[in-house]
């Protein structure tokens, strides 16, 4: 609860001072190249993984990616590279 409040404060603080929110507040950043490659930085882990759906936690938001032939090409503590034919993204705020 306290972390969520802290994250919200940092987010508002970064917006107020026009600072990059992904650096200051640790918000997830997503780069989509074409419709085939997605790079997610500052992720908090994979919640669901199969050929058609990959759910990634971004802290206070869950990114639900669905498509065909989805797979995680590379992953480390902060970055996640997903490849496949992306059909849609849903954002679920927690």
């Amino acid at each position: 609860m306290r972390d969520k409040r802290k994250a919200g404060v940092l987010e508002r603080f970064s917006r107020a001072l026009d600072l990059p929110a992904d650096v200051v507040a640790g918000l997830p950043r997503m780069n989509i190249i074409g419709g085939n490659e997605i790079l997610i930085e500052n992720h908090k882990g994979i919640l669901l993984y199969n050929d058609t759906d990959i759910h990634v936690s971004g802290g206070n938001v869950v990114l639900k990616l669905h498509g065909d032939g989805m797979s995680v090409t590379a992953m480390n503590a902060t970055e996640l590279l997903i490849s496949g034919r992306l059909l849609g993204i849903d954002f679920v705020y927690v």
Partner: protein
Amino acid sequence: MLNIINYFRGSVRVELTSEFPERFINICAQNNIALWEIERGDNHTLRVSMRGEGFRKAQTFTHRGIGQIRLVRRMGLPNFLLRYKKRYALMASVLLMVAALTALSMFIWEIDVSGNENISKEVILQELNELGIGIGTYRKSFKPKDIQNQMLIKIPELEWLAVNVTGSYASVEVREKEPKPIIVPENEPCNIVSEKAGLIVAINTLEGSASVKVGEAVEAGQLLVSGLINSNVVGVRQVHAMAEVTARTWYEYTSVLPVNATGKKYTGRERTRNAIILAGFRINLFWDNPKKTPVMGTEKTVKRSTLKLGERFTLPLVWVTETLTEYEPVDFTVSYGSADAFMKYALGLRLDDESQGAEILSADFATLEQNGVYRCDMAAECLESIAKTVGIQ
């Protein structure tokens, strides 16, 4: 590119089995274990690639009851080298080969001479050898600039020389001196003399006083146009004589050819033998019986192939193939027609060379057979410029 890096660093392919395999990979990621090529098996199985140390660390997570991890295969260069770690002789051979190639590339194994026309390649190589440059010379043992200067002193006919060393290959480029024509400057007085003997057909004097007329026969060196002009007003004055003098000139040459000659009749038998030249030392790969003397004549053709790696890295190994073709000496008589044609051709070439672009008006040939030889006499008449400028002495 990442695949190349992962190959050199080495990696493993593992299979994760867990109730929630996503949780397993999240824990791996949070513990700085990089993962790639994540493939889903069934609902409880994932296959991932990771580095070796990541695998060791991931194995500790299985003790927490998160899941099971199984090694599928090892990949990469470290795994490849591990398989051969007991093969000491193989490793030593590879190292020895690399060392030998590195060491051999520091020496010159091939020298090529280009640009020479009158000076033979053997003369240039001989002089270079005396200066310490030859097959097997250490590349750093000489300075090309010093060699250039010394070679120009040793062979005065050379105008310019450059030695370029690339790898084990040395390229020697030369330029020979050309005889400079004697040119009298236009502001200096001069005469015009005859370069060759001939009969004057045209003379056009632009400056100076003509000493000959059309139709007059002149000898080589005879004065044609004088640069000294006698004037009643200023006396004798000197000028730079200029004139176009055209004359008929004659050339006579003779060629002989024996009527009977000895030729070669090939029997069809030939033998091939090989040898190796290693760093200048020849090793024959054949053995000829010294007591056995050949009955027939033998013609030898030698072919040399230098072993190279790429364009400029020459190895000190030359493969020599000698082909010995057997022939039988046969006496035969040269026909009149063949001798006549050959001698006319040879005399024609000589005339073209010595007349230097003169217009050939006529060329008569007479071929006779006399005392066992064919004799061909040629008389040619040409039209050419015979004016030559010389300074007034």
